[in-house]
């Protein structure tokens, strides 16, 4: 029987890996994937809790999180395409038209 702490620690690790990905990668798409990683860590949390609490709402929550993840991915990639068709780049550090 693995206690909840392990799952929490695992999810924090995954979460922060995702964060680091967001902070470091230049490629917008990979950044999006890192965000998916973060959401995944969230799901891990939810499921672990729902198991520990014997409450299913965690799992329902996870379902919604996945839904939202899908929606975000769709919109995000749409934006990426629009951007790419205008700027011919998907590197975030070349996107600095507006600053100051």
């Amino acid at each position: 029987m693995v206690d909840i702490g392990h799952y929490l620690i695992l999810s924090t690790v995954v979460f922060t890996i995702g964060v680091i990905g967001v902070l470091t990668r230049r490629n917008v798409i990979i950044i999006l994937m890192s965000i998916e990683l973060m959401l995944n860590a969230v799901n891990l949390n939810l499921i672990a809790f729902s198991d520990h609490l014997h409450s299913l709402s965690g799992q329902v929550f996870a379902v919604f999180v996945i839904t939202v993840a899908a929606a975000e991915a769709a919109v995000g990639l749409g934006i990426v395409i629009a951007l790419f068709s205008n700027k011919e780049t998907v590197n975030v550090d070349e996107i600095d038209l507006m600053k100051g």
Partner: protein
Amino acid sequence: MLEYLWLIPVLPLLGFAVNGLVGLWKVSRTGKPQSKPFVYSVACGSVFLAFSLAVGCFWSLIQLDPHDRIIEQDLFTWITGGAVRTMSGDLANLHINWGMQLDPLSAVMILVVTGVGFLIHVYAIGYMADDEEGFYRFFSYMNLFMFMMLTLVLSNNFLVMFVGWEGVGLSSYLLIGYYIHKKSAGDAAKKAFVVNRIGDFGFIIAIMMIFSYFGTVDFTEVFEGVEAIFPTPELMWGPLSWIALLLFVGAMGKSAQIPLYVWLPDAMEGPTPVSALIHAATMVTAGVYMVARSSAIYSRAPDVLLIVAGIGIFTALVAATIAMFQQDIKKVLAYSTVSQLGYMFAALGVGAVAAGVFHLMTHAFFKALLFLGSGSVIVALHHEQDMRKMGGLKKYLPTTWWTMGIATLAIAGVPGLSGFFSKDEILWRSFSNPQGHILIWIVGVLVAGMTAFYMMRMMFLTFHGEERLLPKVAHHVQESPLVMTVPLMILAVGSAIVGFLGLPAWLGPNIFEHFLEPAFATHYQATEEVHHYAHSTEILLTVFSVTLAAMGIYIAYYFFIRHKEKSTWWVEKFRGVHQLVYNKYYVDETYDLLFVNRAKDTGRFLSAFDSNVVDGFVNGSATITRISAWISGQADIHIVDRIVNLIAEIFEYSSSLLRKVQTGLVQRYALFFVIGIILVISLYLYLGV
């Protein structure tokens, strides 16, 4: 008659208003000045009416029994204010009436002011004849002065007195600066006003002390309060002494005592009638009048009395020595005025109030006369004032000569003339009075001698000896018109005879002093333990002083008529001393040295001020003030204001920093996000909020 007392000052005021407004109207609308006859008839008329009213009041005053010869009239309530806590510990409301008081002292004053004033007005008609644009200005100013002076002497409380006090200062400012185009005139005017202000500074503080101690500024009430609270003289230095001293500071400013006398010689920049009226006969004696008026206070502040006497006699001495070597005829008279004022203060200082006032009166006559005389000389010589360019004028200006002669003899103290009596009274009192001192007497006698000397010197240089006239004026010198000479004659008569009002004890009753008694009633018994001298002593002293005066006269004769070369020889022999005195002891230069050069050392600060460094204490101090003013001005720009702008700049700078932070890189933003989270949660981890 007495119910018309208020008219006495008001009449000149009306004259001022009419002349001023009408003249202003005329000149601003038509560009042409008001016609002269109108102007002087209004001006002189108002003053004459005032004079006759004054006589009337005087008459009805002496009808009264000596003990109720103090008439107070409150015209209207002037200032009403909240409460203050007085010395006696109870509350008094600030309630000051605009009131008048007629008692022997003020009666004498109004007679002198209106009388002499009227004569001088008349004289001015002639003297100012050739001044077109300023005629109405001049006379309206003169009337304004009359109003203020009468307010001063007729007031029944210190504050109204202060009104007149400032007012005469103002009108003297206007009249000294009358010749607008002359820069020196403007400077002299400002100098006079500011020095007076320094004096007034003392005066106003004295008034505030008086009110906050006695809860009133009304003369009679204050003096009663003084008697009630300080029955005996204040042997330790206390509030009363402070009041007395501060009042005297005011007097020093107005009556040109050391060290505040420097403005008076400069004041000669004004027209001569002004010098006669304001700077000889009336205004400058206001200080004397004020000290005399408050003798109740002084009689209880012996230390201050000593100071008054000391400064008075010292001023007399210094001014006399300076006067001996002046070449400018008006300067001589100016310094002699200072010297005579010194006499009066010495008198007050030794407690001889009546004597002081007596000398004030006589001096008003002969000094006014002297000034007017010199004025007619100056007019005759087309505004030439340097005695070295005169001489032998006797045959051209006979009337001027004999009238001035009488005045000179009077001031020189020749027996039988007014000056003799008043001066001798002072000398005797300074010897005999308990507050007196042998030193004062000695110096006094000395000064008497010097006075005789320099006055005669002036006469000789001006009217006798060979002519040193400039060719261009030489051949049309003639006597002044009647309108100028008649006042001279009247004054001459006056300065000859008024002396008999105050005979010395060994000759008869001193009417004048006796008449003044009620004004100072009961103020002296506190310090009265007179040891009586025999008449012989008094006579002896008189003889002594008279001889000294005679010697003075002779020396003058010896040097300036008999052996003129001698004078130059002496001058050569004692060049140093002569230089020293001739240059008025370098007082002005010393002030310059003290302030101006120091100022120069302070580098470029002063470049701004050197341009307008004029002589003397005032400008010296003004320089100091201006340095500090400049510094504070700079401080205002560079420190106080700088800080404000600095804050603004800091904001703008940090604003630009924040704009740099906004790099436009989305990952940098995310980084900030993370940093934010880290900070917040570490707050809990490490600080455990």
